[in-house]
């Protein structure tokens, strides 16, 4: 494991209909869908925390 500290992904301008998709994807990657903030225009900013990544793919 080259990186044990984890990674944070911040996505902005995410439409409502994609929230469930990213939540399920984050879970399948072993991560957490930790924050959802609605933007003034109605879209969302989301934060996904992922566990320590392994660039080798294993």
């Amino acid at each position, binding site marked *: 494991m080259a990186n044990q500290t984890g*990674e944070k992904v911040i996505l902005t301008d995410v439409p409502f209909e994609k929230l469930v998709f990213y939540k399920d994807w984050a879970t399948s990657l072993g991560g957490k869908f930790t924050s959802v903030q609605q933007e003034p225009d109605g879209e969302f900013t989301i934060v996904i925390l992922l566990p320590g990544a392994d660039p080798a793919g294993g």
Partner: protein
Amino acid sequence: MPVLGGCAFHRDKNPHNDVLVFATQTKFGVDISAPATSATLPAFSVGYNRSEAVWMPLKPNGTKDHPAADAFAEDTVTKLNQCDASLLSVVADRAKRNAACLAAVLPAGKYVSMSSGIKNDIGGNALEIDTYSVFASFGARGGISGSQANGGLAQIFATGIAAQRLASNPQVGNALNVAAPAAAAEEAKAQAEEAKARQVEAKYSSGENQNRIDTYIKGAKTPEEAKRRNDNLILAMQNAQLGNTAADVIALEAGGSEAKRNALIQELKKVETDATALKDLI
């Protein structure tokens, strides 16, 4: 202490005969001595000495012209509760009822007020006499860099409504705690590790190639299949030299250009061996 005692308990001259006296003294020292056989290590000493005291008059009662403190409190509480009950159906706002009853019941010159707890399990709902609401905090922290000598001291003092409010907030206890040096060092280390965590940001942009990737991801029917497809995505990202990690994949899916997404799909077709999964990429 003799001075405080004289003020606090001279019942005839001083009407504040119901007094809370609170005093502490704290001494704190750290001494690091070098071994007798070593002439290179220095010896450190840290000293700390602190004293504080509170003299707080509670009720200005007790002379022959005023009822005894306990009788006064009991009688006033009864009257306040009766007043509150009588106004309950007329004035819905409890604060307004309290203000009206205080003005009606409490005699002038009494350093008391009426209060109930925050809720039934914190202070209770019954109205009670509250004398002074006081909060004080004393804290100190010391240390010597290089010697690993550290120390922390904390002390709080609260009465009345302030104590109720303080007790109702679980974070206050944590904030006033002085963490043990070892725990503080571990916390600092954890924060440093978190600060080193890689952060990827992307602005969402939709597209046809994004839909293909989404279909591929959503096509997994089991957790095992989802893991296999996620691993393939990361491997394809590496082969296309678009990134190395799951965070890179998410960022590309959400906010990458359609051209880069297409490059990912082309590499994914090379590493994907399952026919059903390949159909999801079309």
